[in-house]
């Protein structure tokens, strides 16, 4: 056994496969070649923060494939998980009990939270009330593993990793839940053509907007290689390197598109046929190898309107967060919490007073 934490923390007692600390991204340093990184599914992270009363951009744990097991070394801690994954709690003297996702849970010292396989999407999120007491780098707690940049040495959580907590105990109030898991929508992924659609033949643009592509096996936080019809350039695939964004769809000389995700390089020299709109980035960030997708073109004005509506929807989901109701009965404790102590769990604004917002939040994209 490892020595106990002297300050409140969660300790990894079994590492997962690929769990990293992420906030909403390290913006403002791309001119130095510094990738933005950040949560692949920002909606998931924002909702997980809302469930524990944190500001939306507070860093959480992004879990891919299989989550870690975490031991609570604090008096108590409130955590929340958003995303579809198997969860269970091991408490001393009790048999292991399954826990639900899309809600908060208040854990006690010595508890072990076991995060299992992530299903139905590439990633899920774990947040803690008050956030992790980690040192931001260039204003952000996002992890860019390729260059070892970010908290915990820029590495994924490993065996024995300690995640220091700002709080030694859970905030007062009852545990809360989302009435429904978030609905990410369906249908074709919406894109704005460009910036270099004029580098492609008319047939290539038509093919791109009508074909079905599959996420290839080369899929990670940098991007997704898409298997499907090749796209012909009118001339060379190469351009003088220019800026990239999350959602850029670049097409190298072999004609196979690559959809760039959060760990993308800041600039690149391949022509880009289209860009995924910001409202659909959480959807593509959740794609795994084998996942199918097609594309539909919209204008910038349409993309902006879709994003504004999406922000209203997310705000409504956050407002709908309610005390957990046990199945088949009235939870008196929760009712008291809701009626008598309202405001203690300030879901919309978060417990901003206990945090240094500048330190905790990445700038929103």
């Amino acid at each position, binding site marked *: 056994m490892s020595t106990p934490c002297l300050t409140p923390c969660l300790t990894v007692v079994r590492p997962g496969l690929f769990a990293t600390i992420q906030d909403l991204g390290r913006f403002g*340093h*791309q001119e130095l070649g510094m990738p933005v990184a950040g949560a692949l599914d920002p909606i998931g992270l924002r909702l997980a923060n809302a469930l524990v009363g944190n500001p939306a951009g507070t860093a959480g744990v992004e879990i891919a494939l299989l989550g870690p097991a975490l031991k609570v070394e604090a008096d108590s801690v409130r955590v929340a998980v958003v995303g579809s994954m198997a969860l269970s709690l091991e408490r001393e003297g009790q048999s292991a009990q399954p826990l639900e996702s899309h809600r908060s849970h208040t854990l006690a010292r010595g508890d072990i939270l076991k995060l299992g396989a992530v299903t139905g999407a590439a990633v899920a999120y774990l947040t803690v009330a008050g956030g992790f007491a980690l040192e931001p780098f260039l204003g952000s707690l996002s992890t860019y593993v390729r260059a070892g940049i970010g908290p915990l040495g820029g590495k994924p959580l490993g065996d024995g990793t300690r995640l220091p907590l700002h709080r030694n105990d859970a905030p007062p109030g009852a545990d809360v839940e989302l009435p429904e898991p978030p609905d990410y929508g369906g249908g074709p992924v919406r894109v*704005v053509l460009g910036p270099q659609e004029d580098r492609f033949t008319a047939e290539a643009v038509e093919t791109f907007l009508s074909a079905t592509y599959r996420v290839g096996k080369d899929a990670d936080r940098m991007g997704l290689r898409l298997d499907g019809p090749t796209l012909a350039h009118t001339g060379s695939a190469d351009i*003088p*390197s220019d800026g990239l964004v999350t959602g850029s769809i670049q097409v190298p000389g072999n004609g196979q598109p690559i959809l760039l995700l959060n760990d993308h390089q800041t600039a690149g020299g391949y022509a880009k046929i289209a860009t995924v*709109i910001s409202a659909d980035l959480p959807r593509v960030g959740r794609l795994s190898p084998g996942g199918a997708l097609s594309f539909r073109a919209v204008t910038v004005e349409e993309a*902006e309107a879709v*994003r504004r509506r999406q922000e209203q929807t997310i705000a409504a989901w956050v407002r709908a967060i309610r005390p957990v109701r046990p199945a088949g009965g009235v939870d008196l404790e929760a009712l008291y919490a809701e009626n008598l102590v309202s405001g203690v769990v300030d879901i919309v604004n978060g417990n901003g007073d206990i945090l240094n917002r500048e330190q905790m939040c990445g700038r929103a994209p």
Partner: protein
Amino acid sequence: MDVRFTTAGDTAFNVEFGEGIDRPTNARVMALHARLKLAALPGLVETVPTFRSLQVVYDPAVTSRREVQAAVEAELAHAADARAEGTLWRLPVCYDADLGPDLAELSAALGLSADRLIALHGSTEYFVYMLGFMPGFAYMGDLPAELEKPRRSEPRVRVPAGSVATAGRLTTVYPWESPGGWHLIGRCPVPLYDGARPSPVLLAAGDRVRFEAVDRARFDALSAAAAAGRFDSDTLRATP
């Protein structure tokens, strides 16, 4: 003075000043970059300068393309090309054969002796056009025309950190171990990226660089000092 706006979804657009890689075009990119840094437009997230275009990144939850582009167009009317010169750096390079594994092949392909190639590489003051690829990776030009050669047809999976390399009319120092397709001609012993520095990236777009050949003993001494955290990168500044 034609400027072209291209679209990168609903979070960014590019202001393109030309098609090629040249100093006058890049000077216009950097001038607009400098002005927008001072402008503090609401919802503007950042601007990213590249060879011939400036990427303007904005938050569509706060502002809109129409508003940001209008503000950028207003700044364009005032953006003068003239700009304070960036820092001039003197970067040591050891051109020993084991540190520059493509030196022999490249000089043969160019019809030059290795010594001539090294002399030419060190003969020019380079301009940092932009950074990209990895944190601190600087695209510098212009390489003397005699040294022009496209990137390798087979990129390497692993290029050591510090590798000094060329491709086309450009040169660079790889700040990290990474894949890479440029011709490796030497090694720089001092870190181009150091997370412990207040400003982790040494070179900024608009800076200038001179390469200075050092022998193996000096290379080893500088490498050891850098590895021990005893190297002060300010000593590389040629201008105070």
